[in-house]
């Protein structure tokens, strides 16, 4: 074999060898576990924290509102649709939970005193939920719109409905609007 060819082959072999070594070191460990991707990525994505909490957890304390909601027109709507995500609100509760525990004298079981929780006034601003009561909040769903089906949602043409300066919630309590 001519000298220049051998020399070139050596150079190329070194280059390819270096590449293969680098590739072996750089390739993530879980790559190819399920397919051509990092298997751990699935677990990382699944581990992300949630912000909209389980809807059941609202009723643990705010049973008065959930009772009002049950059976009313808005019964199927998640609390957080109007009040915003509950994760921070829940965090505050978990941090201050001990304050609201009460022991049942008969059975000795500790439970959360929901009335005590709702009476708490010291919840910091950032942990508070939204309490939208302006007209626009209602009109996002209830403004008349040709694209909305009347059988799905009741609609109102606000320009000629009662006093435009009044808030909707003053006449229609949001948790049980038809009461």
């Amino acid at each position, binding site marked *: 074999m001519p000298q220049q060819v051998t020399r070139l082959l050596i150079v190329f072999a070194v280059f390819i060898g270096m590449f293969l070594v680098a590739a072996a070191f750089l390739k*993530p460990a879980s*790559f190819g*576990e*399920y*397919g*051509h*991707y*990092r298997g751990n*990525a*699935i*677990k*990382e*994505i*699944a*581990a*992300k*924290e*949630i*912000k*909209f909490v*389980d*809807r*059941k957890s609202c009723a643990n304390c705010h049973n008065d509102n959930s009772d009002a909601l049950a059976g009313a027109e*808005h019964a*199927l*709507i*998640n609390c*957080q*649709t109007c009040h*915003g*995500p509950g994760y921070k609100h829940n965090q505050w509760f978990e941090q201050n939970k001990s304050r609201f525990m009460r022991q049942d004298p008969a059975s000795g079981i500790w*439970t*959360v005193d929901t009335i005590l929780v709702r009476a708490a006034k010291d919840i910091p601003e950032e942990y508070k939920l939204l309490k939208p009561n302006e007209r*626009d909040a209602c*009109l*996002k*769903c209830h*403004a008349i*719109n*040709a*694209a*909305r*089906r009347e059988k*799905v*949602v009741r609609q109102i043409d606000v320009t000629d409905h009662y006093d435009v300066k009044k808030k909707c919630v003053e006449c229609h309590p949001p948790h049980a609007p038809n009461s």
Partner: protein
Amino acid sequence: MPSSACSKFLIQNKMETEKDKSKTRRDFFKASALVATGLALNAVVMKPGRAAAEIERATAAKIPDPDVQYGFAIDLDKCIGCGNCAKACKIENDVPQEPFYFRTWVEQYVVKCDETMKIESPNGGIDGLKQSVSKEGIEKSFFVPKMCNHCAKSPCEQVCPVGATFRSPDGVVLIDKEYCIGCGYCVQSCPYGCRYISPITHTVDKCTMCYHRLKKGLQPACVEACPTGARMQGNLRDKDGPLVKFIKEHNCRVLKPHLNTAPKLFYNSLSEKVI
């Protein structure tokens, strides 16, 4: 076409599971071991009142679960265009608030009497959608929420040069943001405009079907936030489940079927005008 397409899809997926099963048996044992450890840990840490619910969730969370094919359906008859889904999605998934980045958004279609069409989606519909066409000029109008179609033959997964976008064994198209190089090729390949380059991570981003919530036994944020139950998420392999039942019982279609991307997002009452 819709129901036959759906059953064909289910058959195809069934076949895939059989293949997957032998391959991932070992992973399955590994996962079960993890779950078991998790349960043991939970039992120690958990406070008595919450334990039952948490255990229920931990059992649901097999990550990934090859026996499941997640799918999605939207009942357009029920959509009222309030935009709560898009709003909740941005919060749940830390999507930038600027009106250029959406994992889901709501479009308002107006077919006018003169047969022209107007589509609007200001700020993705987050602030609610209003009619800009006068009542007299409207022939018909409807809302269409859009999101990632989690295509079974996803063009984005096909073109990703490094394997940062992939279809999980449970049928969700996901993005590995630690591995994405941010080339934007997948953004170009998505016919539905569902992807964007995040200005925060400089990697691509899109709907994950709230995979992190599914694995905690919860519904996606958009489904939770929808006031009318127009959005449904479920398991396409669960023949008796609500999702498959809904798809079977309604005239469901997918978006841009001619592109053969095999979406797993099914729409009821989808007008042929929708693009």
